[in-house]
């Protein structure tokens, strides 16, 4: 436990600093009230609005741990939302619509996984293909319009409340806990990390790299399906054109802010989710502070850069050095951090 805490400390600090910063522009940021059985307040909004990216980040973390990347999650969200809305509009029940959406997500993930693990197409390219195609498929389902529905059970998933908290918050919390437990209570986490660091060596040691890779993309597809369900349920309609548009970039950003390396290997789901919350805090903060919209991008870019620079391996090495040198006696030459990982070379 304390290990986890230590791992996510930088993200926690960044989040805290960010909250403090937003509070300067919008003092009531931390205020939370109880309003007929549910909590309301900017912070709750952050938790709720961060749900799609947080959910995507869970799957994306696994994909990135295997040294892959999944650019198609935004499109998968659109497909799953469209599928669910189509099912509801054609009179299926809530459960059936949910199942269909999840199956669509798993199917899309399977497609990615097969292209990558089976045909050996580079993850960036394979998922880029689905990123292009997927939105087309989603629009094919909705025929370009916004498919609306009125099913209260389904919309509850997007805007309902359970035990005081919005349902989307529960969704990412539970999904995060479940996946993290699955990774750490079984050997999956270790095997995924091994494949991500050195696929060849892992395969020689008997790790079933192919199946793991496929599984990871399926997991990412499922997470994207959940995110798509949340977004569709939230607006009670499937907007195939815009659902999840460019969210894949936010999800990747979240994973990186969470301190996970894009070169694969060691990963932390908790840290990625914190990364998603950091991004959402920035977004919500900008909205609440009331800047003109043309500044949104610059502010976001600036804040993200600052956070990443402060977390960068070199800078943290310098920090550790400064701390150490204060404790021990100073050394003449400042040590340049030496990378511990051998060069990425996985060609045969």
């Amino acid at each position: 436990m304390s290990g986890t805490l230590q791992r996510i400390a930088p993200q926690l600090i960044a989040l805290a600093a960010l909250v403090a910063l937003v509070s300067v522009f919008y003092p009531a940021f931390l205020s939370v009230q109880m309003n007929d059985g549910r909590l309301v307040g900017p912070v709750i909004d952050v938790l709720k609005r961060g749900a799609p990216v947080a959910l995507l980040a869970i799957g994306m973390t696994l994909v990135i741990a295997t040294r892959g990347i999944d650019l198609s999650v935004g499109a998968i969200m659109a497909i799953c939302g469209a599928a669910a809305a189509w099912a509801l509009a054609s009179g299926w029940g809530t459960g059936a619509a949910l199942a269909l959406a999840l199956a669509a997500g798993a199917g899309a993930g399977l497609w990615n996984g097969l292209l990558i693990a089976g045909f050996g197409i580079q993850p960036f390219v394979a998922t880029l293909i689905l990123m292009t195609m997927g939105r087309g498929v989603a629009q094919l389902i909705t025929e370009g319009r916004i498919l609306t529905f009125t099913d209260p059970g389904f919309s509850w998933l997007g805007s309902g409340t359970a035990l005081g908290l919005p349902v989307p918050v529960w969704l990412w919390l539970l999904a995060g806990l479940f996946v993290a437990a699955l990774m750490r209570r079984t050997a999956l986490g270790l095997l995924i990390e091994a494949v991500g660091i050195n696929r060849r060596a892992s395969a020689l040691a008997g790790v079933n790299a192919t199946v793991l890779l496929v599984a990871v993309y399926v997991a990412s597809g499922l997470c994207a399906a959940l995110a798509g369900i949340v977004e569709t349920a939230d607006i009670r309609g499937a907007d195939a054109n815009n659902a999840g548009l460019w969210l894949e970039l936010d999800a990747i950003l979240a994973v990186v802010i969470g301190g996970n390396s894009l070169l694969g290997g060691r990963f932390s789901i908790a840290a990625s989710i914190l990364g998603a919350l950091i991004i959402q805090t920035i977004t919500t903060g900008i909205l609440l502070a009331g800047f003109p919209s043309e500044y949104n991008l610059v502010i976001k870019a600036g804040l993200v850069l600052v956070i990443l620079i402060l977390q960068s391996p070199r800078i943290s090495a310098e920090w550790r050095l400064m701390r150490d040198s204060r404790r021990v006696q100073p050394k003449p030459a400042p040590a340049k951090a030496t990378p511990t990982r051998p060069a990425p070379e996985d060609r045969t």
Partner: protein
Amino acid sequence: MLLSIRSLTKVFPGTRALDDVDLDIAAGEVHALLGENGAGKSTLIKCLTGAYRRDAGTITLEGAAIDPRSTREAQELGIGTVYQEVNLLPNLTVAQNLMFGREPRRFGMIDPRATRVQARETLARYGLTIDVDRDLGSFSVAIQQIVAIARAVEISGKVLILDEPTASLDAAEVAMVFDVVRSLRDRGMGIVFVSHFLDQVFDLTDRVTILRNGRKIVTTPTKGLSRMTLVEHMLGRALDEATHAPAGAAASAPEPVLYFDGTGRAGAIAPFDLSIGAGEVVGLAGLLGSGRTETAELLFGVRPLQTGSARDTQGPLDLRSPRAAIRAGFGFAPEDRKTDGIVADLTIRENIILGLQARRGWARPMPRAQQNRLADDYIRRLDIRTSGREQPIGQLSGGNQQKAVLARWLAMNPRFLILDEPTRGIDVGAHAEILRLIAELTRQGMAVLIISSEIDEMVAVADRVIVLRDRAHVAELTGDQVSGDAIMRAIAEGDLPGGVAA
């Protein structure tokens, strides 16, 4: 002195890799740098060439203090280096690797033709006539090793540093490299030579410096030094060198338990028959590129069989993939530990249990206590020098990484273990230990296929030796025939001595 190092210190988190080390290299000498695995040899070299920043100490070259901050600066100062792991780029051609940074240019543009010609000429001096336009990565480790040496020699004006350059070379190549080194010495260069092959040290070097646990123990002339004292200095204790009498040599060959009938693959290895008995050690001998590694990879399912089949006493075996081979009870410690062996960012513990865990499946994680026990056990038995089982394996010294990879396979207790250059880069102490371990395992009935370029090692462990040439099994030596001379002769037969077929 050509090069002097004073009070060099380097601290890694948890390890003091170098502690106040002094070293002097004279012009016109070959200076051996010796020590156990993890003694700090490679670290010293990397500090010297600017690959690592040292924490304290001074370096002077020809009387002037130098402080290279990158290997490029060191190269410009006239220090050429072959690092322990082959450090060339697999995606560049041989010529590009060889001439990198010194490409002949015309009108400011690189002249590819001149580059090729020069590269070919350089390699010819090492008896290597290969297609220099092919990617380096398509050649065996040994060829890459020679290219690395040739490159270092070319760029070193004053000092040449060789960190285990001969680890995967066979006798003919070694002789060739030594000729080059001697001629450089005669031209007044200073050469640092790191090796675990003591014979080579006695053969080539003028002085030795011995490191132990990051400290310098002694510097003495090689001549007059006895092998025993050398080893004692290195280990800090005497070594009871076990000379192993192959188990099966005296008795009649054991009843085979595994049969490979007509197994082969076009372009890799011609079809061959092989059977191996419980407790038997079979060696594969041959020149570079003769197809030893290919044989091993075929048997382990890394490259699928095209012809032939495998069976045991119960029936046919499926060898379609490494996983299938592992299910059939096989194990394979590959030659190139960096790309095929270690999983660098994982800890030693995780690396050791990786194979076992993969076999159990993801749903049944091995209890942590059991993992710890296993890891500690092998760290102790193989004498892996580490600050603890939770150290990332990538931070270990080369030899210690090799031991950890071996530990992974030993822990799985396969019935048939394939070892490709298992003792590459392993020090004398651990070497003996590993051979002892192999002997113990074979006594318990494990069959072993061992590939080694070290003929002595082969003679010491193998009951039977199969000789390969040009990607075909050409001879088999059994019983009393297994001797250094006989193997050498069988390898060379019908072949120019040292000739590496292009």
